[in-house]
């Protein structure tokens, strides 16, 4: 439900991750296809809560678990960006 015609970019979501989690890297260093949890960036469930808060502040919607699984949306930066793009209210 995009009320804004502006498309969400992977770079801006990467920047949100870097800012919300105080990551020691630049947004450009997060590879779009890489898993954000576990193997790739190595985020954990505490990070997920922080990201959820940052998303709600920036994009005006609340993250929810999908099909009973809390972290499916974090499969990759690309996945998360697509998810934000379809749910954002601002």
């Amino acid at each position: 439900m995009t009320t804004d015609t502006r498309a969400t970019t992977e770079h801006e979501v990467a920047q949100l991750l870097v800012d919300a989690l105080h990551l020691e890297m630049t947004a450009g260093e997060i590879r779009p296809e890489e898993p954000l949890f576990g193997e790739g960036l190595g985020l954990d469930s505490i990070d997920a809560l922080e990201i959820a808060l940052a998303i709600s502040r920036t994009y005006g919607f609340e993250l929810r678990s999908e099909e009973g699984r809390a972290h499916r949306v974090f499969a990759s930066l690309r996945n998360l960006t697509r998810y934000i793009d379809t749910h954002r209210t601002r």
Partner: protein
Amino acid sequence: MGEATSYRLVCRPADHVLFRFNDWTITATDFLGMAHQLASELPGATHVVNLCHDRLHFALGLAAALLRGQVSLLTSDRSPERLRALQEDYPVLYSLSDDQAVSSPLPHHYYRAQPPRPCADGPGNPELPASRLAAIVFTSGSTGEPVGHKKPWGALVERSLDAAACFDMLEAQPASIVGMVPPQHMYGFETTVLLPLHAPASTWCGAAFYPEDVASALRAVPAPRVLVTTPLQIRALLQTSTELPPIERVISATAPLFPEIAAAAEQRLNTRVFEIFGATEVGSIASRRTVDGDIWTTYPQVHIREDQADAVVEGPFAVPHALTDVVEMLDARHFRLLGRRADLIKLAGRRASLAELNRILIGIEGVRDGQFVAPDDLDRRPTARLLVFVVAPERSADEIMAELRGQIDPPFLPRRVILVDELPRNEVGKLTDQALGALQARQNEV
């Protein structure tokens, strides 16, 4: 209360609700019928790793294993390496999961519940010996060598009854529990899975991780509602604008809850906030209402025995175990926590020892010296993580990070690996807090 020598699998009136799952309400009779059905499908084995995410599937897995005489293994680390390591210790082992995408190297049983069917002659509800080993719960270690703790059936049942008494669940209308903690974690296991089997309570079984999940879960269940959660999730709830229905009681564990947060939650949610104190080894053993002060009251049947420097926890049928925390006993049932023993750190409800982490670090090829450092505000700042100083002239920070990633739990991965020429060890080779602090300060200036 009092100790019996055996306890039924389920000790609730036949038509009382134990679990709520999607639109289903699972009564005691339904639950027993579903457990027998699952038990008849399970492979023969001595042990089962219960990896089910959903609480209903998890609870049915536990019950079916009990019916089949199998011991349930509970581990939060579900990596293939960890499961293979378990298989070495428990050779006749399989995994049970409700996730088709799970990658288990073990013989595997996939399970999703079918809607309950009316059961003509009432499913069996066997008496199980109190001494029967029901589960082995593993500490979430940092070393790849988590320790399993044995949980006899009688110990789990008596502790549930204790918890119910402590949280006024015996007199009142059955409580609706919404849990935000995985069932494989000892705290989540006790409060969201075991309680409804023996005390007047039902557990909601959908996802409840993000504030919005919790809001819809709470709306879906009848009052009185009890939210089983953690300090970080309480903090997240306070930061969203999500409206929540009335909550009778909030229960928090896994990390210290700061009184200011507890007070803010009591006011904003118009509720009472309690903490449980416990550990994987001993289970939940005490509680307090956080805003009332720092004194903990033990569960009615729990006894803390001071044995020289140790505080040993005893309870009906439970395996006695010393706490890793230092306590000051005020009287038989009240104590203060004075801090954690040795060098234990806690993140995301998991524990690690700095000494173990350092051992792993030093074991990496090319590392001459190294040290994990915990920032002072690790308990208070959710984004705070460890950092690592390392002397490894031939290796890069990225390589060291990659090596660590394969060996330690994600929460304990350092946010930064800082390469230095040498660590400021004193003449006896010790790294003092002061020297490390100075090193950190220099890094922050760079």
